[in-house]
């Protein structure tokens, strides 16, 4: 059973639907721990103050806003509490719009909605209505102390909540070097490009794409973990095989000699000490 990350209610007009939110996506990037090369222990992060030359614990850390070069306004917990946050726990629908009018550049993270038992019927009603009208709901929701703009839309058998970036958080393309609309394009060029696009066109089927890099990386990790048994060649009677056997015998003899040395040494040290 996945754990919900938020509990609240969808509200619009007189309707209030109690729901839970669940994250809809997870990154499957291969993650690594940072280890000390000598002993392979996980390293610990420490915070260090160069002016006081001391390690700083979390309870001695405060947040500061940089308003000028190296000039900070220090904020404490009390300051953060003064920010008016509209009543939490509500997904407040403010408008309904057509889905294709919302540009994907706005989308940030996705969540799934699950209604409580009491809200099952109004949830199904909202879902069905959105499906039939082809519209989505623009809503405001307070997640993690911040009021998020979001879209509520039918997805699979539930409703998905897509949090969005505010318009002033979306960068303009004005500072990029983009060829303008007046760039001369001949009809032939356009036709050729068009036929290339047609040739590669098809239905979008995400299941045909795999993270090749991740699979290859996991393969390597698995082989390393298994100690990589490398198959030894079949021996053929002859001088070369005899030579290799002689070398292996030398290696084994040297190993036994070293083991015997180690066994003898502590005894002699004990006798001397």
């Amino acid at each position, binding site marked *: 059973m996945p754990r919900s990350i938020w509990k609240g209610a969808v509200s619009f007009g007189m309707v209030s639907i109690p729901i839970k939110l669940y994250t809809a996506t997870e990154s499957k990037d*291969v*993650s*690594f721990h*940072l280890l000390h*090369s000598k002993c392979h222990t996980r390293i610990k992060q420490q915070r260090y103050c160069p002016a006081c030359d001391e390690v700083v614990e979390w309870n001695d850390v405060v947040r500061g806003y940089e308003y000028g070069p190296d000039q900070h306004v220090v904020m404490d917990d009390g300051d953060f509490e003064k920010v008016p946050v509209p009543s939490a726990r509500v997904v407040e629908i403010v408008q309904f719009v057509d889905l294709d009018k919302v540009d994907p550049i706005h989308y940030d993270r996705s969540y799934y909605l699950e209604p409580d038992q009491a809200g099952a019927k109004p949830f199904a009603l909202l879902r069905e209505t959105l499906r039939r009208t082809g519209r989505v709901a623009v809503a405001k929701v307070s997640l993690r102390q911040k009021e998020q703009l979001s879209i509520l839309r039918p997805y699979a058998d539930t409703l998905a909540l897509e949090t969005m970036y505010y318009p002033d958080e979306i960068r303009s393309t004005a500072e990029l070097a983009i060829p303008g609309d007046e760039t001369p394009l001949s009809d032939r060029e356009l036709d050729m490009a068009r036929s290339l696009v047609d040739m590669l066109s098809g239905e979008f089927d995400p299941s045909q794409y795999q993270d090749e890099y991740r699979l290859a990386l996991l393969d*390597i990790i698995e*082989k*390393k973990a298994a*100690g*990589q048994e*490398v*198959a*030894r*060649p*079949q*021996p*053929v009677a*002859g*001088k*070369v*095989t*005899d*030579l*290799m056997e*002689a*070398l*292996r015998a*030398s*290696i084994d003899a*040297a*190993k036994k000699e070293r083991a015997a040395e180690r066994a003898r040494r502590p005894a002699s040290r004990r006798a001397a000490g």
Partner: protein
Amino acid sequence: MLPTLAPEPFDSPDHLFELKWGGVRALAYVQRTHLRLQARNLRDLSPLYPELAGLPHQLRARSALLDGEIVALGPEGHPDFSLQRSRLASCLLKPPAKRPAAAEISYQAFDVLFLDGRSLLNRPLAERKSILRDVLEPSQAAQVCDFIEDEGIAFFEAAVEHKLEGIVAKEKGSLYFPARRSPAWLEVRALQGGEFVIGGYTFGGGRRRDPFQGLLLGAYRGGRLRYVGQVSGGYSDEEAAGLAGLLSKMHVARCPFVEPPAIQRFIFWVKPQVVCQVRFSHWSPQGRLRFPVFAGLRTDVSPQDCFAEQAPPPPPRPRRGPLS
């Protein structure tokens, strides 16, 4: 793919260790029943080794490209390059009057690069070794090269004890890079030896009526041919006569070395095309070979492959995976 030098042996679970055979490195192109043995300088060696003609019949595939070494074994079962010396030299010199001692020739295959039209260059070494084992049926003439795991140091010491040339450590996960010198393969040498280009010879002097007094050797560093020393021993009378005849047809007016050696003798400069094998005691601080001894013509090596390693590079530790 060629190894880089490591100054010392090491133990490693990520490497496998093979003998440095001191033979002739050759790629074996097998196409049905046809075999072509190709040297590092791309010369076709197949006519020199009729003993290996049966290799295609040991292959459980229609076509393959194997990488390995042609090894000549002496009576005590040790690899001995000098047993191949006259065969290699015969590419440039007249074969000697006396037939050389019969040598037991065997091809030690240590890698497979292509199999039935599929490239294996992007498969890790461990996998290529498995495939090689399945695909080559061993015989006296051609076998899959054996290797040791983990114990590089003990293996090297055993090799030194048996007076062998050294060992090669290869990363189990490494891919194959054709014609590249790569740190994924590390060579640890027990004896000092190398391949050098003949850039000239000195004339006159000496007790016998020698055709030449000494050969002037060079090696490439930074793209230029540098003089590394003079060798005046190690060749038989016949070899010397043959060499003199060969070199007399290759005279050039200008010294091929970046700096002419300070030798008070009459020197003939030659086109830097002939490569020879030389054993020596060590490198002098000035970058010269000390006590060099001629060990045969390398008609299988091109001059550009003779590089001057002044000192082996600082110890490259067995590589770790990427930190992510």
